């Protein structure tokens, strides 16, 4: 963005603003306040509906998986950065690390799903209903895996791992800001490979447990990758939006250039295609084979009002943004790119809505204010969580050994 010679010398100017400063405190307070109020309002409204909390729980799960995908995307970005020894992405890596700071809050929010399940609330997952499981051969056979205690244990394992990994990488990275020790980069690089494997397995399994088990008769081995596609897509979109917002507020103005925007745009565009590729791969095999226990997932999504959402996803989540973001001129125009990225986050939400809500209402598409309250509430708490952990850190790894390479990075 700037015309300073940062991009030829590879050194940050002394007057570069690399702190959120008092803004962090303000945003944290706003996030916590709005988050608690909105979630409480959603809870009360959900209780008043008198549907055994079914609507609330589905909205809660939707919002939870939406913001979980941001944090998981952030973790993926950090791991990938170290794994491949990337240079270009150093200037935006801290932003991804800040996103992973939300894992502790997400852990607490996860309890909002596990605890009711343990207390015997059967409103979210069909497999948690004993009467149904007893009469259903398939669910009976799956009960050894799909049961409340084991579900809770698995969630604890996933979150323990994500918390540990995000903490490890954030801590080393912030430590390097003061010490400038290149050995820290090596440490992170060494851990990144096994961490990536663990990340892949846990993310896929979390998607199976949280989302796929909403249709417990159904199974799709690629489903974990489908959810991951949304995680990766949202993190690149988020980084572009965050970079643009920070630069508008006068921060990181020299560090992040159009070259970085172009790369973030490329990755967003690539994962738009990746999402469509995985989604279609999942659909085509099931459609071709047409076996009842597989096609049960697509039945409501193809033959009820949900078919319009399915169709909208193909057009809005793939056709339009794929062509719209294809040109380099779009990617090198930060405000325009940020706008596209906001759009991508919106259609990513639509995608999750399409995954979650047909299990609440298989025939009709019903949007309820509780959905928005849960999203606003969880979004506020996500903001609070991320900034609470990493809000005081610098906005870019100022003494990373590869920083100068990232500052002088040029696409050609």
């Amino acid at each position, binding site marked *: 963005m700037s015309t300073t010679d940062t991009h030829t010398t590879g050194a940050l100017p002394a007057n570069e603003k690399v702190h959120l400063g008092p803004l962090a405190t303000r945003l944290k307070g706003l996030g916590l306040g709005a988050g608690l109020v909105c979630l409480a309002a959603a809870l009360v409204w959900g209780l008043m509906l008198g549907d055994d909390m079914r609507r609330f729980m589905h909205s809660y799960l939707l919002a939870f998986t939406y913001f979980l995908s941001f944090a998981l995307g952030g973790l993926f970005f950090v791991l990938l950065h170290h794994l491949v020894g990337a240079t270009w992405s150093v200037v935006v890596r801290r932003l991804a690390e800040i996103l992973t700071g939300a894992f502790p809050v997400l852990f607490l929010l996860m309890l909002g799903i596990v605890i009711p399940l343990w207390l015997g609330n059967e409103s979210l997952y069909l497999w948690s209903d004993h009467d149904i499981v007893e009469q259903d051969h398939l669910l009976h056979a799956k009960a050894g895996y799909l049961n409340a205690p084991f579900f809770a244990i698995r969630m604890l394992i996933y979150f323990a791992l994500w918390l540990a990994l995000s903490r490890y990488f954030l801590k080393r990275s912030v430590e390097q800001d003061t010490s400038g020790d290149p050995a820290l980069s090596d440490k992170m690089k060494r851990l990144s490979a096994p961490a990536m494997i663990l990340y892949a397995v846990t993310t896929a399994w979390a998607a199976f447990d949280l989302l796929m088990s909403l249709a417990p008769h159904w199974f799709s081995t690629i489903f974990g990758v489908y959810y991951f596609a949304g995680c990766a897509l949202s993190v690149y979109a988020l980084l572009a939006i965050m970079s643009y917002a920070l630069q508008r507020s006068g921060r990181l103005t020299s560090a992040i250039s159009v070259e970085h925007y172009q790369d973030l745009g490329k990755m967003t565009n690539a994962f738009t295609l990746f999402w469509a590729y995985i989604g*279609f791969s999942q*659909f*085509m095999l099931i459609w*071709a084979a*047409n076996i009842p226990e597989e096609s049960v997932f697509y039945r409501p999504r193809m033959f009820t009002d949900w078919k319009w959402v399915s169709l909208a996803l193909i057009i809005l989540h793939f056709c339009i943004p794929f062509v719209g973001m294809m*040109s*380099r001129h779009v990617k090198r125009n930060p405000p325009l790119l940020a706008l596209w990225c906001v759009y991508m986050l919106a259609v990513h939400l639509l995608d999750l809505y399409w995954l979650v809500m047909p299990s609440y209402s298989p025939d009709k598409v019903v949007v309820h204010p509780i959905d928005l309250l849960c999203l606003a509430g969880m979004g506020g708490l996500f903001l609070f969580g991320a900034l609470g952990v990493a809000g005081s850190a610098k906005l870019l790894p100022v003494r990373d050994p590869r920083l100068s390479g990232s500052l002088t990075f*040029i696409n*050609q």
Partner: protein
Amino acid sequence: MHDNEQKPGGRTEEKFYGLLAEFDSPGALVEAAAHVRDAGYRKWDCHSPFPIHGIDPAMGIRPTILPVIVFGAGMTGTALALLMQWWMNAWEWQWIVSGKPFNSLPQQIPIAFELTVLLAGVTTFMGLWALNKLPQAWHPLFKKDRFYKVSDDGFFLAVESDDPRFDRAETERLLREAGATAIEEVRYVTSPEMRRVPRPIMAFIVVTAVLALVPFAFIAKWRNSHSDKPHYHIVPNMDFQEFSGAQAPNDVFPDGRASRAPVEGTVAHGELKADDHFYRGIADGQFARSFPSQVEISKDTMDRGRERFTIYCTPCHGEAGEGNGMVHARAQAVGATATGWVQPSNLTDATYVKQPHGQIFNTISNGIRTMPAYGSQISEADRWAIVLYVRALQRAKNASIEDVPPEKRPAIK
């Protein structure tokens, strides 16, 4: 090459290509490029061992058109794949695959995707070569020993003498100013003979082209000759597939048969045959007195009926349908009439003239007396065409002079 240059008699001419300037670093080359660009030169180029960041804007190179070409090629691939699959599956050779429609978008998408990628990828590669005017087997700069460093550690800028702004002294001064460490004139000798393709390369091309024809020659020979040896099985497990034939035993199923009966209540595609009029010749519980709506009364149908009649009916009923075909002639010749041979019916008799269309259709379908059923051999549409032709035969046999158009009557009399 060197031999050619000294060959006497050739119309050699010396040409002045331009000035070659060397720079000692990539950065110096970028700066010099900006200099030459600002001086307004058009025909010049930079040469370096590796791609240099920022040289494109420094040289004033406009953004390439390649992405647009590649996008067009990709879209062509998509359209081509969809058209091809529609043509193959839904038009030219309709074939049901796992109960899906003939023209089914989901099963076309993988092919469409692949062809999009293929055409876009190949176009990127070929377009890159074409837009860069590659391959260039020869270039005047190759004449300079100094230029060999371009694949190692040399950074060069060459300005062509064809450039409208080129001026021997002025251009040299500009390059010197821009920081060139050495400047050389590039002159080369050329003649029509030198431009000829060298003999070994020409020989290679000719030999390769001839050899490339050999497989086709063999294919042509094989296609046009007979052999009593068994043919080659290039893909044996496609030629000999492990599937059970009809009526074969098979342990997989409890009834021990490989053939599966259709699920009760199901009807195979096109086998419902609910229309009594068309499929059985019955309308309102009686033999139909009209042709069904599917049958078009036309010259085409009549010709088709005549052809089918000639194939299936004439052996017994004769060319004119009078019951005196070859089979009957033969039966008489061998004396079968004495042992109970009954002459085939004369279709032009009043009995048959009076029969409803549907009854004749029914007789063809199911047979009558000693006549076998033809329903399994002749399709419904063809049976109706035969009925139409039989009607024509009857009309011809029982015609009066009034049936002939007035202007043709004198010819008959």
